């Protein structure tokens, strides 16, 4: 019996969408208000979905405490109340929510081995959300 478990987390961070490979005019045209030089912030809602067989003894796909500990240590400690543009992973990549999804997916995939990582989904606002399931998709 295979189940898919999703856990939601919140963090707040600031960013500015700007690419050094484009002119000021191009940046302004593509990113609009998000290109404001002083940046702006969001309350991000992160969903992490993992899956696997339900253990006969524990009734669990994985122990939620393990997933919570990993996400708190590796994701929330890293990004909550931070300026994303100052992070090493966003020196070349623009901290769009697309790239944030991929960065978080890669960290969880690398460090969490108690269940299969299905998907990382982020709501940047209530009106837009982004999902990444790895290069293979799902």
């Amino acid at each position, binding site marked *: 019996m*295979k189940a898919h*478990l999703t*856990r939601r987390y919140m963090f707040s961070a600031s960013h500015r969408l700007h690419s050094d490979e484009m002119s000021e005019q191009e940046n302004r045209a593509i990113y609009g208000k998000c290109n404001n030089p002083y940046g702006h912030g969001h309350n991000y809602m992160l969903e992490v979905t993992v899956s696997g067989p339900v253990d006969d003894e524990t009734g669990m*796909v994985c122990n939620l405490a393990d997933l919570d500990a990993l996400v708190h240590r590796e994701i929330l400690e890293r990004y909550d109340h931070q300026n994303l543009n100052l992070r090493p992973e966003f020196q070349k990549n623009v901290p769009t929510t697309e790239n944030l999804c991929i960065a978080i997916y890669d960290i969880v995939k690398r460090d969490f081995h108690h269940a299969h990582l299905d998907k990382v989904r982020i709501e940047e606002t209530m009106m837009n959300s982004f999902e990444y399931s790895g290069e293979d998709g799902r």
Partner: protein
Amino acid sequence: MVYLTRKAEFAASHYYHSPKFTAEENARIFGKCNNPNGHGHNYTLEVTVKGDVDPRSGFVVDLKQLKDVMSREVLDAFDHRFLNKEVPEFFARIPTTENLAIAIWQRLVPKLNAAQLHRVRVYETPDLFVDFYGE
């Protein structure tokens, strides 16, 4: 193919404990959920069925029938119950959200004639939910 989702809510109590583990192991694995006096949640259930739209009715499924099946098979059995002590599936199996989703799937599958069950989603809290697709 069209997918239709119906929501329902139920409130129930449970605790996590396996007789195969020692008291220390139970406490370590299940943490606060191991309290033998139980604790409760407001669960939200989402049942998704799929099927072709009937050309005459315009329905995938008669929503009234789906609602009745969910009420009779799930809510009547689970709502305002202590799951470990009052729901047979959990006399010998821990009522985790994973096992709730599986038990609800198994209760609904034989009772749904018109549409095919696609997914059972159970929210234990707004921050935690489990999906089961019958796999």
